[in-house]
């Protein structure tokens, strides 16, 4: 009685595994989670095969199951174009149960966002903003730099406070960060009322 139950449930498990995973020699899940990506391009491998393409952060599981006592070695085959690097932790071991603790941590490339300031003279009080990034520009400055921006992210520089007695405008301060630094933002200041 007991063994017939076991056999039936084993058969069911096999059927499920086959239908869900397209076959494979193993019986254990191999997966984990990915962070730090926002577009396609990440491909993971196990033991140099079983390519798994991932396009969004979150959980992943390889389609091929792995066998009990078999070795697994998860590596990064390719990364998205806007990603600096992806690091794998808990990627190697011998499978004794479902492995779901592999972490793939990716870092998106960042680029500089900066430019020139003209007409500021010795006036103080100019504060530039790119959303939550706030940068005060000192009196006498002829250049400025915002916090670096992730590749593919938008940016938009606005003026939070004008310097004393001056009115400043921003040119070339809005766009989408490409693959190179943005260095041509121009902040030009003239006496207020002029």
């Amino acid at each position: 009685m007991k063994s017939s139950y076991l056999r039936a449930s084993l058969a069911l498990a096999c059927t499920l595994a086959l239908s869900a995973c397209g076959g494979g020699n193993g019986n254990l899940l191999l997966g984990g989670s990915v962070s730090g990506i926002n577009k396609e391009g990440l491909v993971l491998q196990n033991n140099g095969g079983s390519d798994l393409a991932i396009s969004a952060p979150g959980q992943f599981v390889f389609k091929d199951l792995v066998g009990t006592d078999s070795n697994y070695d998860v590596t990064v085959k390719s990364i998205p174009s806007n990603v600096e690097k992806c690091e794998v932790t808990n990627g190697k071991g011998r499978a004794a149960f479902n492995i779901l603790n592999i972490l793939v941590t990716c870092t998106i490339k960042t680029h500089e966002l900066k430019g020139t300031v003209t007409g500021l003279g010795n006036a103080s009080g100019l504060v530039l903003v790119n959303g939550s990034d706030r940068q005060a520009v000192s009196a006498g400055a002829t250049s400025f730099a915002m916090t670096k921006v992730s590749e593919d992210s938008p940016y938009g520089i606005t003026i939070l406070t004008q310097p004393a007695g001056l009115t400043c405008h921003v040119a070339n301060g809005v766009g989408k960060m490409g693959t190179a630094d943005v260095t041509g933002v121009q902040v030009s200041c003239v006496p207020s009322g002029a």
Partner: protein
Amino acid sequence: MKSSLMRPAFALALALSLASCGGGKAKFPISGVITGLQYSGLVLSTNGMDLPVPTGATTFTFPNELEYGDVYDVTVKNQPQHQTCGPQLGTGSNTAGRLARINVSLGCVINSYTIGGTISGLTADGLVLANGSTGGTLAPSKGTEAFKYTFANPVQYNVTYGVTIITQPTGLTCTVANSTGVMGDANIENININCVPAG
């Protein structure tokens, strides 16, 4: 033999409890830990006591202690400025003595508010707004009448926002009024966008 061992043990226990509590029943101070408190004004309350908690505090203890079996329920009587505090699930109320000591765990977060405004003249699709590089983007569809919009990502108190137009709609030129500011203690609803035919 057995009772002769128990007697000194009992005497020792009694001596210890007398030493720690000044005699009588066991007393339980109502204390706890606080994380994230940055602004003034927090007042906690339980068992008829109010306890003002100063800025930056990481622990608190109410002045009067409870006796075994007394029920406590620590609540926030006044929230601090710009923040919302509350006990972590299951730590704010219990019966004194059920645990060896009372340890309320209180967490505080900085309040966040939405940013948005009214869009008028948007007779074509394609407008894309952004709040800097990390505040999210918004692509409102065209509308025949002026309509309100709100960014999905709220902005924390004292954090800046700056709304710019990343992409102009087809055939229109839009401008942003009141685009930039520092978040206060209310939703921002005046980042108004006006679109007119280009050229």
